[in-house]
């Protein structure tokens, strides 16, 4: 395959621009259009088409910050899948459990950060327990692992319903995270010439920042550290890694702990931004599934791209065509599968 590709690539290189460069140009052009849409003052006809500039920019910002949350959930999912070839369909339950634990701890102690830490730590432990007692026994048996994780999610959802009932909870964020940021984006110009600037909740920006920090951290861990090297080696050839003296079980347990912990962390963070209620587990499981299918299994960069696409599609859909918003997400998934069945950043199998 690569041998056949070689000549055509050199040909096109000598001819002018490569496909990659062409896509880069398209991307730059799109970025320029979006930048103009965000920063320029809109003429009336554009306001008429896209409802209002405020609605448009808010949809974009909401999409990006929601993508941060989706990335947190999906990165844990893709991490666990990438190494252990194990679709943990109980991942949504981990998110919801993390959110409930974060709620309880924050409510009892009054410290939000303690709730966040508890959400991560408890779910990391739960993840290790699941790996050691359940998934390790079913190594290499994909279908049974999937079925067992579905069974676990059913039981977990029912038990959580028993403990926390069907109500909706909101995790209270500390004061220093409340309030709004005034962004350097003009939404409208008053008749007296004064500009109206867009304000945006600080908390959502912080969520996005946390997602970026964690994403970069995960990428560095996977690509620059010794543990990351082991993990990537384990993805490609588990038996060889074991033969070279690495305790594969320990590596797997660490990855499962990080992945499940991230789901719990996302639960607390998401539960503070939105709300905690039964049924959220399915919602975030769906989000992780679609993000990972679109982005490519086992790729952190892919999860980021997928999360951005899905988050933006969901929020823009919510503003401009509320009924068919979910269909937009679905169309993105189908188109991706049609063009690249392995996902945008996935490796060809």
């Amino acid at each position, binding site marked *: 395959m690569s041998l056949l590709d070689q000549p055509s690539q050199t040909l096109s290189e000598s001819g002018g621009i490569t496909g990659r460069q062409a896509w880069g140009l398209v991307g730059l052009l799109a970025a320029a259009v979006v930048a103009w849409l965000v920063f320029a003052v809109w003429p009336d006809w554009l306001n008429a088409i896209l409802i209002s500039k405020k609605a448009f920019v808010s949809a974009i910002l909401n999409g990006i910050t929601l993508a941060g949350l989706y990335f947190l959930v999906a990165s844990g999912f893709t991490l666990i899948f990438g190494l252990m*070839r194990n*679709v943990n369909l109980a991942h949504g339950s981990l998110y919801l459990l993390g959110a409930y634990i974060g709620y309880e701890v924050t409510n009892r102690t009054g410290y939000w950060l303690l709730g966040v830490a508890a959400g991560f730590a408890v779910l990391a432990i739960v993840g290790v327990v699941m790996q050691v007692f359940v998934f390790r026994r079913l190594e290499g048996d994909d279908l*049974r692992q999937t079925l067992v994780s*579905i069974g676990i999610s059913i039981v977990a959802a*029912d038990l959580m319903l028993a403990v926390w009932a069907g109500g909706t909870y909101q995790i209270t964020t500390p004061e220093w995270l409340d309030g709004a940021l005034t962004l350097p984006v003009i939404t409208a110009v008053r008749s007296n010439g004064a500009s109206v600037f867009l304000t945006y909740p600080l908390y959502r920006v912080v969520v996005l920042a946390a997602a970026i920090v964690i994403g970069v951290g995960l990428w560095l861990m996977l690509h620059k550290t010794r543990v990351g090297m082991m993990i990537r080696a384990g993805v490609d050839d588990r038996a060889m890694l074991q033969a070279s003296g690495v305790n594969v079980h320990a590596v797997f347990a660490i990855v499962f702990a990080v992945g499940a912990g991230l789901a719990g962390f996302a639960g607390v963070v998401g539960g503070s931004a939105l709300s905690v209620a039964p049924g959220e587990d399915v919602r975030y499981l*769906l989000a992780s599934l679609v993000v990972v299918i679109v982005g490519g299994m086992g790729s952190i960069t892919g999860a980021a791209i997928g999360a951005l696409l899905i988050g933006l599609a969901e929020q823009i859909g919510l503003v401009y065509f509320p009924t*068919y918003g979910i269909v937009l*997400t*679905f169309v993105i998934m189908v188109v991706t599968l049609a063009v690249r*069945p392995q996902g945008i950043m996935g490796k060809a199998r």
Partner: protein
Amino acid sequence: MSLAIATTSATPQRNWLEKLGAGHIILAVALVLYPLVASDFFLTQIGGYSLIFGMLGLSLMLLAGYGGMVSLAQITVAGIAAYAIAILGNNNSSILGLGWPWWLAVPFAVLAAALASALIGWISVRTEGIYTIMITLAIATATFYFAQQNYAIFNGHSGYTGIRAPVFWSVNWRDARPFYYLCLGLAALSYAAVLYGSRSTFGMTLQAIRDNPRRMRALGYHVTAHKVFAWLLAGVIAGLAGVLLVWFNGRVSPGTIGVDAAIDVLIIAVIGGLRHPIGPFLGAVVVVLMQTFAIDIVGAERFNTLIGMVFLVIVFVSPDGILGLWGRIKPHLAQESLRPGP
């Protein structure tokens, strides 16, 4: 090849009774006579409901057992047929309800379901194994949310009510006994069709594709087309089940095609066993009995914990479900009689 010839010459033309097998005859007689002993509640809530969910499980078994494609979207396919019946026929929700007679609405509903199933199959056959599960789950969930948000076609959150099984041949098919026989007839038809189909050329090809797609592709078979056709057939069975389901409930709403229901179908098929078409029906009886009577034991609240636990135990103990358990116990029972007493 010579082996096949030898066996056919050794057993010359069996008659239809032998072909059918004693087990099937006993089962058929028992099921036909069941209404003589059962109350109306046992006829519809246990009998009819098990048969409907058995058919849904059967459509999954066809895909998973013979084609190696585990789908979580079978309830979605059934839901499309159910919604089609509500939209094309009559309903109480004063929206759509085109008022078609049943003999026109039912074929259209089943056709719509089969085409939808083929479409889902066409999307998901590009992938294998776990990926198929993930994509069909994503499709099922997306359809659920779409049905919930869309008021023009799906009537949003409340769905459609007041859908009734028709009256024809001077039989009121919504009565307990006729409805049970209707379910039994369609279930038996689907069961026989799957059993027959699995031994046909197409069935054999499909099983060969499941076992080694690369070799079949190299031999010149159109692998994707065979898989998509299997989805179409599974869609016909799921569509029939969907028609029965909407007549059974009298209503259809997004809850009917929710993720819980999608997983229920998988649970039924896996608990029963995916190796033989009878498995899903066994699983359906077990799950429906549990759903009905576990409430007396653990209370309505914690019922899902119980069913999840049973599911977990069965997946852990026997990957082939009840059929697998039976297959493991059977040789022991046979040997027991041969052994001398203690």
